[in-house]
């Protein structure tokens, strides 16, 4: 298992098909293909029975209904065993009343972690960092976040990104910095000089200049 300690290693990138996997999880054996047709947030955590991870699991459980409404499944991962995952999920429920409603991959072989570039040896040679892969219903990777061991993620930002991506797909628009659902969206910029001339005369758009026009949805 020297492989993930040496460079260079390919990491997945945006716009690519998410790497296939065949994983043992707390909800049975799951393949990436099983999620086809749903969006999927695949996220890793460093270790079971550790504090930041626990707050994150509770937070992921809290936004689970919001994700379900958006057609998004959640799938956790760490290199702990299935028994550890089950014990930890039961402990979290016992101590906090929060039931973990999503499956967790027991990636003891590190096959999934390596395929997704989740082990960053500069942080830890044995644990996965806090990765988030937002994968769309066609199994394309749309967003990747790597947070360090010390820093819990932000659930509202994860929801905001999902909303932005789904708004983009549904309406053929883009979303500006700090966008939230309900805010105006961005109309794709013209790609010809003629288009630019027409754009600034277009009614119903709020334009700063030919290349930056917003509209309400």
């Amino acid at each position, binding site marked *: 298992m020297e492989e993930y300690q040496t460079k260079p290693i390919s990491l997945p990138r945006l716009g690519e098909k998410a790497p296939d996997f065949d994983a043992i999880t*707390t*909800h*049975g*054996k*799951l*393949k990436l*293909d*099983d*999620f086809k*047709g*749903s969006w999927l947030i695949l996220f890793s955590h460093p270790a079971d029975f550790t504090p930041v991870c626990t707050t994150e699991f509770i937070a992921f459980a809290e936004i689970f209904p919001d994700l379900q409404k958006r057609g998004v*499944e959640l799938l956790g991962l760490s290199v702990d065993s299935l028994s550890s995952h089950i014990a930890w999920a039961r402990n979290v429920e016992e101590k906090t009343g929060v039931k973990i409603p999503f*499956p967790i991959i027991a990636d003891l072989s590190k096959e999934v972690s390596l395929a997704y570039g989740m082990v960053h040896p500069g942080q830890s040679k044995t644990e996965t960092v806090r990765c988030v892969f937002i994968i769309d219903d066609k199994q394309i990777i749309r967003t990747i976040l790597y947070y360090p061991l010390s820093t819990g993620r932000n659930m509202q930002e994860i929801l905001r990104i999902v909303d932005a991506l789904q708004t983009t797909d549904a309406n053929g628009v883009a979303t500006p910095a700090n966008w939230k659902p309900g805010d105006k969206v961005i109309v794709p910029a013209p790609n010809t000089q003629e288009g630019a001339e027409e754009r600034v005369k277009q009614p119903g758009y709020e334009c700063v200049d030919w290349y930056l026009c917003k509209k309400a949805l």
Partner: protein
Amino acid sequence: MPCINPEGKPTETGKKVLQALRDNGLCSAEKVAETTGVALFRVRSGLRDMIEAELVEMVADKYDITEKGIKLIE
């Protein structure tokens, strides 16, 4: 929460899936998910396990319950 427990018996989720197949005949995984309220990814995973355990069989791209499957939920 796979559909088969280590003793080879269907779990509660497994039973739901088998019942849906028994009651509806040949079904797609999507139809089973819709009927049972079980998440599609779990239905797909469970059907795979239950095919291996010979409780379910595939006919073209749909699923059916086997005789062995019917016995286990009676």
